[in-house]
C-alpha cells in the first residue's frame, strides 16, 4: 500500500463571509463541523465499571438522569465498538494492565473520562500499596471528575465538557486531533507486574510528577 500523506490542507471559510452569506439566506458549513457534530452526539461508552462510581454511572444512564439525551446511552460491551472509556472507580494495580489493554483495543478516535477521586488520583485509597494513583499515568485522560463518588450530574457535566472538546477538534494543522496525526500512537504500553510495583510505574510521555513549589 502506498504511503499516503495525511497532512491535509483544509481551507477555512472567512468568518465575515460566512455571516454575510447567512444574512442573505445561504447556510455554509464545513466537513469538520459536520464530522464533529456527528461524533459528539453519538459517543458510545465502554460498558465498564470498576467500583462504586460505576453505580453512579449506571444511574446516569437510567431514566432519571438519562444519558441518552446526549446520544451516549449505547454502552458497548466490546472495546471495538466504543468511543469513550469511563474509568469509573478505583484502579487497582491488578486491574491497571487490563484497563490499558482495553483502551488500546478501542478504535480511534477514543476518549477517556476519569470518574471520581480514585480514578484521578487514587482517592481515599491513595496510600494503599495496591492502588494506582490515577489512571492518567498510563492513558491520556480527557476529562477528570472529582468527587467520591461524583453525582450523576457531575458525569453529565463531564460529558458536556467532552462534547465541547470534541466540537473544537480540528482536522488539519499542527493542532489537529490526535487521531488525525499518523505519528501519534494509538496504543500505550501495557504495564506488567514487577517485583514490587507495576513496571513501568508510569508513562513518562503522558504523566510527570507535579512540581511542588515551596516558599523559601
Amino acid at each position: 500500500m502506498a504511503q499516503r500523506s495525511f497532512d491535509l490542507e483544509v481551507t477555512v471559510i472567512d468568518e465575515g463571509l460566512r455571516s454575510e452569506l447567512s444574512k442573505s439566506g445561504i447556510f455554509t458549513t464545513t466537513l469538520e463541523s459536520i464530522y464533529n457534530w456527528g461524533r459528539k452526539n453519538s459517543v458510545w461508552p465502554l460498558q465498564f465499571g470498576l467500583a462504586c462510581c460505576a453505580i453512579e454511572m449506571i444511574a446516569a444512564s437510567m431514566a432519571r438522569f438519562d444519558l441518552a439525551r446526549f446520544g451516549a446511552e449505547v454502552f458497548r460491551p466490546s472495546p471495538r465498538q466504543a468511543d469513550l472509556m469511563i474509568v469509573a472507580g478505583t484502579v487497582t494495580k491488578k486491574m491497571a494492565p487490563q484497563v490499558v489493554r482495553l483502551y488500546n483495543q478501542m478504535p480511534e478516535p477514543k476518549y477517556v473520562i476519569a470518574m471520581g477521586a480514585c480514578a484521578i488520583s487514587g482517592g481515599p485509597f491513595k496510600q494503599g500499596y495496591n492502588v494506582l494513583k490515577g489512571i492518567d499515568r498510563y492513558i491520556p485522560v480527557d476529562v477528570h471528575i472529582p468527587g467520591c463518588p461524583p453525582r450523576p450530574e457531575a458525569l453529565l457535566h463531564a460529558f458536556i465538557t467532552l462534547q465541547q472538546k470534541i466540537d473544537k477538534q480540528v482536522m488539519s494543522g499542527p493542532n489537529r486531533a490526535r487521531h488525525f496525526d499518523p505519528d501519534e500512537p494509538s496504543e500505550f504500553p501495557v504495564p506488567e507486574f514487577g517485583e514490587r510495583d507495576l513496571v513501568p510505574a508510569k508513562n513518562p510521555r503522558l504523566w510527570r510528577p507535579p512540581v511542588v513549589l515551596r516558599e523559601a
Partner: protein
Amino acid sequence: MANDYSPNLFLAVFVFLALGFALTPLILSNLWSRFFSPAKPGQDKNAVYECGLESKGDAWIQFRSDYYLYAIIFLIFDVETIFLFPFATAFLDLSFGAFLAMMVFLLLLVEGLVWAWRKGVLTWR
C-alpha cells in the same frame, strides 16, 4: 386502461432501500478512513480476544471423551420421554407390530440404562 403494475415492485424498492440503509454508512466510513484517518493497527488492537486479558494457550482444546456417558444418560432419560408421551396417547389404537417396535426401542434404551447402572455411573461419588 389496464392496471398493469406489479405488486412486487414495492418489495424490490424496499430491498433496495434496505440495502442502501445498510451499505451507505459502511461505504461512507470506509471512504472517510481512506482519505482522512490514518490507520493505526497495533498488537493489542489486532488481538482476537477483547476482554482486557491476554489469551493463553490454544483455542483447539480437546474435550474429555468421558462426556459420552452424559450423552447416553441424556438419551435414556430425556429423549425417551419425548417418545413415551405420544406412545402413551396412541397406545389403544396401535397395531401389534407398532407396539412390538416400540418395545424393542424401549428395551434398547433400558439395556443402556442397565449397562450404565452396572458401570456405576448413577452412584454419586
